[in-house]
């Protein structure tokens, strides 16, 4: 069917996919960037004498932000790899979400180079000296290789996201779109392999090693499950907001909402599946060096949070997103988008904060203003980069060979 649009005019009109000069979206990068920087500044000023509180809040927020960027990268790569047709009209939004990765990389560097001593118990030489388990893990858990690994992950993510973003945007104006399509498809498979390994080890380094005695081989998959559900939610939420401002109407349709809703549903279930698998094997084997990680999450306030997480992250979205009508209605879908984005933060909180609280023997959740300011800071900066990316180019890959297929996509 190629070339048929030449007879009937363009597939997508210019004003559907480019912001008008007076659009509020044009002001978003400055506004959210300012909110983000000020909020992070306030958080840093409120740091106080015990820096570990600040760093744990900061790590929670940054790992939440990272899950959106990594989700965007995965979404882009996997759609190329499987030659998906339906997702072309929302791929540019995923590409702009993955464009936040180089900036998230800059936000993670302080964790690795400044906050490591306050967060990661194994970085203390005296702790290492009295701990045979840590000594056995020293070949992996030492600050030198921890820093090198962090730089490798962040560099690879930035490279992948910038490369795929620039190929895709160059395709918009290229004389021949085919070479870009082939190139992106070819390299997406390599990218997926790199993605899987770096994500897994990054989750080990920055989240699992908060409790250096504990280990779980499924931990990377657990973090990944959150990445994919939050990115589908972010894409759908962005489209809902763009529709309200009058963009992408008739381009991204109910059919695409339905499919994004299916991804949100599926990966909420997948999260439950992986989360339970992790718990189940440890509970069943009942080996103390593994069970303690769940044990202190099962005491005091943390037990309440753990049970809440099962409902917020799995049970309620499972029931709530099951119906076809809910997935096809932008209002109800939008509600679950916000829900899942918040649930991912709750999940990060559950991963990070109990590990640090149990060092002081605290069974209490102490919400802190730092939790809020770091979250607003990271979110503000991410939204600024994302909306900056959105206005640089068209909101859909204009010359993707499968654009017409995606525009006409229907769920049967």
């Amino acid at each position, binding site marked *: 069917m190629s070339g048929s649009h030449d007879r009937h005019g363009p597939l997508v009109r210019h004003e559907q996919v480019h912001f008008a000069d007076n659009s509020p979206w044009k002001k978003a990068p400055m506004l959210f960037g300012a909110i983000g920087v000020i909020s992070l500044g306030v958080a840093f000023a409120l740091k106080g004498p015990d820096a570990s509180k600040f760093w744990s809040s900061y790590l929670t927020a940054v790992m939440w932000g990272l899950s959106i960027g990594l989700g965007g990268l995965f979404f882009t790569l996997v759609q190329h790899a499987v030659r998906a047709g339906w997702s072309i009209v929302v791929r540019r939004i995923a590409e702009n979400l993955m464009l936040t990765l180089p900036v998230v990389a800059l936000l993670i560097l302080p964790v690795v180079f400044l906050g490591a001593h306050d967060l990661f118990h194994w970085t203390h030489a005296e702790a290492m000296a009295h701990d045979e388990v840590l000594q056995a893990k020293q070949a992996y858990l030492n600050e030198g290789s921890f820093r090198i690994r962090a730089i490798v992950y962040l560099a690879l993510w930035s490279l992948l996201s910038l490369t795929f973003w620039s190929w895709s945007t160059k395709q918009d104006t290229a004389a021949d779109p085919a070479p870009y399509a082939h190139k992106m498809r070819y390299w997406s498979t390599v990218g997926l392999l790199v993605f899987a390994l770096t994500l897994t080890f990054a989750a080990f380094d920055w989240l699992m090693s908060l409790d250096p005695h504990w280990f779980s081989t499924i931990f990377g998959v657990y973090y990944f499950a959150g990445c994919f559900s939050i990115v589908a939610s972010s894409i759908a939420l962005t489209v809902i907001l763009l529709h309200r401002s009058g963009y992408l109407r008739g381009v991204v349709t109910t059919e695409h909402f339905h499919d994004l809703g299916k991804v949100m549903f599926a990966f909420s279930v997948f999260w439950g599946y992986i989360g*339970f698998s992790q*718990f*189940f094997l440890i*509970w*069943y084997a*009942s080996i103390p060096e593994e069970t303690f990680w769940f044990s202190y999450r099962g005491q005091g306030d943390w037990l309440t949070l753990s049970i809440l997480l099962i409902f917020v992250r799995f049970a309620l979205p499972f029931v709530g997103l099951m119906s*076809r009508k809910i997935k096809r209605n932008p209002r109800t879908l939008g509600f679950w988008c916000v829900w899942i984005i918040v649930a991912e933060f709750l999940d990060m909180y559950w991963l990070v904060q109990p590990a640090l609280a149990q060092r002081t023997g605290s069974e209490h959740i102490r919400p802190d203003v730092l939790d809020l300011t770091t979250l607003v800071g990271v979110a503000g900066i991410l939204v600024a980069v994302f909306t900056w990316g959105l206005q640089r180019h068209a909101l859909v890959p204009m010359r993707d060979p499968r654009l017409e297929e995606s525009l006409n996509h*229907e769920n*049967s």
Partner: protein
Amino acid sequence: MAKRPKHYGLLAEYETAADLYHACEKVRDAGYGAWDAHTPFPVHGLEKAMGLRSSIIPYIVCVMGFSGAGLGFLLQYWSSTIAYPLIISAKPYNSYPAFVPVTFELGILLGAFGAVFGMLAINKLPQLHHSLFNSHRFSKFSDDRFFISIESRDPKYDAERTRKLLESTGAAAVEEVEE
């Protein structure tokens, strides 16, 4: 005079999916209930053109799935706390986390049974013979032709008027099919 065979209904043949699609819209708007479209491949949006309501299969699957999960759990609860109360790896009799995999799998199994057998039942399958196979022309429904059949049991059915309706929809041929 020989007994006249009863009529199953009318069968209309179309050459393209587009012809069929628009014909379906007309039959739908004429208010028929007992009719169907037959195509060699899935035609997108045909359910809208036919005015089909959504299937009740999801509800069957839901009921079957939750029953399967519930029964699966009860089976394990009964066998490990009542029938054979054994202590295994120092865990309580009712070790419900250990019951989750079987509960989950039985939920899936009965849900899938509900989907497959529910679909067969709603379609009245298996059926050894269907009246439409009395039409020689109809064999092309799995090759390169598109058909609409309207059954004589439909209250709106009238041999003359229904035939006129089908002819007005651009059918390549309209024939009566015997019971």
